[in-house]
């Protein structure tokens, strides 16, 4: 970022290639809306370019970048609430309508068969998205930042502007809420693919 600030356009391209996908996934999971996420992503990088003069290497670039993205997400969510658009509670994926009340384990073959596993995951994804969307915004952002973007709690505290303890508290609430929500949906963590996590 300092190189770009000094006038190196290639440095910016490197930054974009490296951080574009994580930022986009954070925005997508924060907003829960793909088109809006794309807009916010573009706005985020434009703001990075415009704000390059003010950038100081006090914190990590990712902290600064996700702070911009998070603020734009909050603004977008506010605008969206004013528009009274579709609620974040609404289904965002396809094919989740008839499967909502049915446990994912029913009617599925045992683990091992790859096509079936793929089909299971395809049905699991909208449920996970709905569970995530059901979280309050401040818990969701902390969970997404930690779980999917790999931002440490201390940095999340900087991004969100709250204390680290508050961040961890929100994280605990988020994990607890997801666990209950997934249980309500009949999604068992043990049924997930290979029991692996994103960052852990």
């Amino acid at each position, binding site marked *: 970022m300092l190189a770009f600030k000094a006038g190196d356009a290639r440095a910016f391209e490197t930054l974009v290639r490296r951080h574009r996908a994580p930022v986009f996934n954070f925005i997508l999971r924060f907003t829960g809306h793909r088109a809006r996420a794309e807009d916010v992503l573009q706005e985020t*990088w*434009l703001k990075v370019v415009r704000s390059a003069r003010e950038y100081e290497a006090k914190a990590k670039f990712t902290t600064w970048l996700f702070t911009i993205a998070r603020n734009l997400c909050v603004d977008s969510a506010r605008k969206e609430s004013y528009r009274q658009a579709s609620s974040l509670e609404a289904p965002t994926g396809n094919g989740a309508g008839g499967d909502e009340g049915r446990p994912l384990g029913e009617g599925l073959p045992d683990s091992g068969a790859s096509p079936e596993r793929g089909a299971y995951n395809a049905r699991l994804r909208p449920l996970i998205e709905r569970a995530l969307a059901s979280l309050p915004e401040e818990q969701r952002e902390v969970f997404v930042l930690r779980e999917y973007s790999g931002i440490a709690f201390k940095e999340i505290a900087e991004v969100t502007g709250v204390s680290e303890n508050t961040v961890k508290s929100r994280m605990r609430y988020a994990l607890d809420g997801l*666990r209950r929500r997934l249980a309500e949906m009949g999604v068992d963590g043990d049924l997930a693919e290979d029991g692996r996590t994103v960052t852990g």
Partner: protein
Amino acid sequence: MKPQNLHAHEDRLLDFIYGELPPQEARAVESHVEGCDRCSELLAGIRGVRTTMAQLPMEPAPEAGLDSLLAYAQQAARNAAAGPAPKSTWWRRWLMPAMGVAAVTVFGVISVQVNRALDLKEEVAAQSVTKSAEEQPVAPPEPAAPPPSAPREDAPQAERAQAPAVPQAATPPPPAPAAKLDRSLLKKAPRAKPSTVGSKGSRSNWSNAGTGADFGDSGKKAKSYESDRRDAMTQAGPFSKPKPILVGSAPEEEPSQAAMPEPAGADELVADDSDEMFGGRTAMAMREQRAPSPAGAPPPPPPTASAAPMPSVSTSMPSANRPAPATRDESKAEKRRTASADLLRQADAARSAGDRVREVQLLRQALAAGATGKERLGLLNRLCEAEFAIGRRQAAFEACSLVLEEDPRSSAAQVARSRLRREGMEASGSKAGSGSRGPVKAAPADKMEAPAQAQ
């Protein structure tokens, strides 16, 4: 375990699960969890949620907008490499609006000033037209029978012809001599300036006579006229091109007269130069009175030797101060200056003695003696002031108006304008008696003479 301790313990578990603990602490927590059922259950629950949520795949970032973003960044990088933009300080932020407001204000003030000047000129023009329209019934037929579609053409010519009588109408002199003078001048006026009529018709739009447009032209041509007048005083040969003539403008008529054939010799041409002065014009009027002119005579022929200007003699000027005909322009101009300066000194003395009437007479004589340029404008201004001082507002107005017409941009014109304003004669002129005010541009010498004679 107290709730606070419990939360701290759970926070440590979070750090442990997300790998944010140092290895040594991580090993300690791990050993604790193995021996603690509650912590083991808690840890299993977190891991289960994480495992499930990990099923959400990473979405690829859209490529849309990437190129434009990179191009924008490249431009920004170029700008950054070129150097930082100047920081807009507070005074810069305020300077531009302040400058804008100042510019608008200056423009507005200038516009108001120009409009005032134009209003004054239009007023004078309107008065000229009104006066000429009033006197039109007694005006003789034009020698060159103007078309009915251009009725205004009559007005300025009649205006010139009637001009000498105007001041008499404005002041309380005996009516009979004024009427006599009017008639005699009316008969001779068409013959007096035949070439001016012709040249005017060829050069200027008569339909605009007396309008702001025509006066606007006079303002534009004022400077060119000055040079032409100098040429007329210095060159012996006739002018090759006719000069534009304004309504009753004495100075504008000079070049046209100079453009006429000159069989009378250099003396007459030199003497003609003095016609631009008041005395010169008075002499012209007297000349015309003396000249045989049968009533109802046909229009005068084209300019000939008889129509050429005669050596001007001011009736009000003492014989000792009359400019003698000279063969050289320089000597004549020198004599004029001497006579004018002498008269001016006498006028100063009269003013010092408190005799403003005498001062007015001397100023008129000085003007008649042939003052030119700034000296003439200064004399006119002084005359205007003196006339105001003795209460002859009409004569004062005419003197100031002449200043405005001859050089509207000069400082003398500013003084005259402000004086007229002070006297309340700037806008409509009704206070000065517009009905009796004649065309100020016509035959100024005669008009200037009239109040003096009225005394």
